[in-house]
């Protein structure tokens, strides 16, 4: 995430307001569950605050409770233990990355085909767009189960969901990028009698790099979402999605919130990493960002 000058203070102020609103919201929202404890502690303002901000199973946990739970599940447990949040992050991350790489390759391949064949472009493009209007993410858990019953288990089925979601933005972005060179540049290659492959390699691909990175940032975020939803089917045991589901079924509020925060941190880090690679690559290619 790029930060421009003059953003730091407004961002901090708004975050601060959000935290304050969050703490205030805890009081009425947790009132129902905390009622008995507040009464037991003798009622009053102080008791209301301590109980609604520290209830073990709150409707909405206070920020410091989430922080404490994150600390406990990340730093006090060995990362390979099943109770460690890092272990679940790794499960989700690995299938995200596999799906992201497969989806990117598929997307680039499709885009190259589409750019070079008018017939393929006409036949494929409407289906590629239509494929995204199907709420595939919503049926991801079923696909996992189907693939599981057919003998595909573990990381691959989840990764395929991510692949499916990833390829679309990459294809669309790359088609735009590969078509982006000016007519004069294409005419220049034509005067050299360059082959289609040479034009692709020396002109179209370099020209498409900025478009590729824009798509990759969308793709990596959506790949992670795909992996998480892919972990939702009943019986899933590991991953951020499984934590969400188990937490939801057992009313473990803190587990849900920690999983959500962990997923968010991963998403932001992955997008930042792609953005970092973008800046480095474009700088090397002499493109001014």
């Amino acid at each position, binding site marked *: *995430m790029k*930060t*421009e000058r*003059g*953003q730091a203070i*407004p*961002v901090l*102020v*708004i*975050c601060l307001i959000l935290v304050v609103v969050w703490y205030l919201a805890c009081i009425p*929202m947790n009132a129902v569950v905390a009622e008995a404890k507040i009464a037991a502690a003798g009622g009053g303002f102080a008791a209301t605050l301590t109980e609604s901000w520290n209830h073990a199973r709150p*409707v*909405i946990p206070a920020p410091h409770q989430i922080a404490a739970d994150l600390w406990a599940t990340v730093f006090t447990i060995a990362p390979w233990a099943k109770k460690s949040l890092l272990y679940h992050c790794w499960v989700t991350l690995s299938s995200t990355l596999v799906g992201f790489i497969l989806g990117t390759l598929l997307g680039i391949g499709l885009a190259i085909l589409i750019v070079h064949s008018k*017939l393929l472009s*006409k*036949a*494929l*493009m*409407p*289906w590629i*767009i*239509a494929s*995204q*209007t*199907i*709420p595939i*993410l*919503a*049926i991801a*858990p*079923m696909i996992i*189960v*189907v693939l599981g*019953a*057919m003998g595909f288990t573990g990381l691959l089925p989840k990764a395929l969901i991510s692949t499916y979601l990833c390829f679309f933005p990459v294809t669309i972005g790359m088609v735009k990028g590969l078509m982006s060179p000016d007519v004069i540049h294409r005419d220049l290659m034509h005067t050299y009698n360059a082959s289609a492959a040479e034009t692709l390699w020396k002109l179209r691909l370099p020209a498409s790099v900025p478009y590729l990175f824009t798509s990759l*940032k969308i793709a990596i*975020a959506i790949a*992670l*979402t795909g992996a*998480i*939803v892919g972990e*939702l089917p009943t019986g899933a045991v590991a991953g*951020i*999605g499984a934590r*969400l*589901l188990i*937490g*939801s079924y057992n*009313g473990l*509020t803190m587990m*849900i*919130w920690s*999983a*959500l925060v962990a*997923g*968010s941190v991963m*998403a*932001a880090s992955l*997008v930042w990493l792609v953005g970092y690679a973008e800046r480095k690559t474009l700088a090397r290619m002499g493109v001014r960002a």
Partner: protein
Amino acid sequence: MKALRNLFAPALLGVAILVIWEAACRAIPIPQVLLPAPSVIGARIATEIPLLAYDFLKTVIQAVIPGWIIGCAAGLVVALLCDRFDFLKRGLLPLGNFFSVLPLVGVAPIMVMWFGTGVAPNIAVVVIMTFFPMLVNALAGLQASSHLERDLMRSYNASWMQALTSLRLPAAMPFIFNALKINSTLAMIGAIVAEFFGTRIAGMGFRMQTGFGSMSLDLVWAEIAVAAVVGSLFYALLVLAERAVTFWHPSYRV
């Protein structure tokens, strides 16, 4: 006539896929419970029309559409506020960019916990998922007008409101429609996924889940087909509206 010819190639491909699918289901003994043939799914759709229509009502009419409208409207209003108050923009733009990449479907269990068993948690999930794409896109759109055009407004001594309605909002329309289209897909996903967590007793997501439980895969696929058709129609309607509103954009000019 040209439109018909443009439909021919993709239609042929679609039919080819269906034929191959059907043939594969007959030739290779794929268990019916895993991947039913298109003909089987078609037959199930024909017999289950009332049930499918009821689920469509529960999911699309009651959750997707209201959530999509509220989420998009809220995103647009906040974007306009950001446009008016620079401090808000500088604070909210980075946060909006941050939130728009998060796996927000994950809030579904929390919404179910907060809003109980009705349709409310499903709407809430859709609102949360559609809000940020609209905010980020609308803000980008409101800044899309050129320096020259803004100088022109300044030379007329136009008020913020006048510059907004005559310049920045029309210029933002392609971006706003982009968000509306992205959000149409997100809204379907949000509403269906939220049903996996909820305790609703009808709806497309609920039916898919129970269909799985009872191994009636043809019903699951029937729901998937309905979702696909609804999603595509939703999207197509938005594309038509977009063409009508942003006819002037270079990508549509005739």
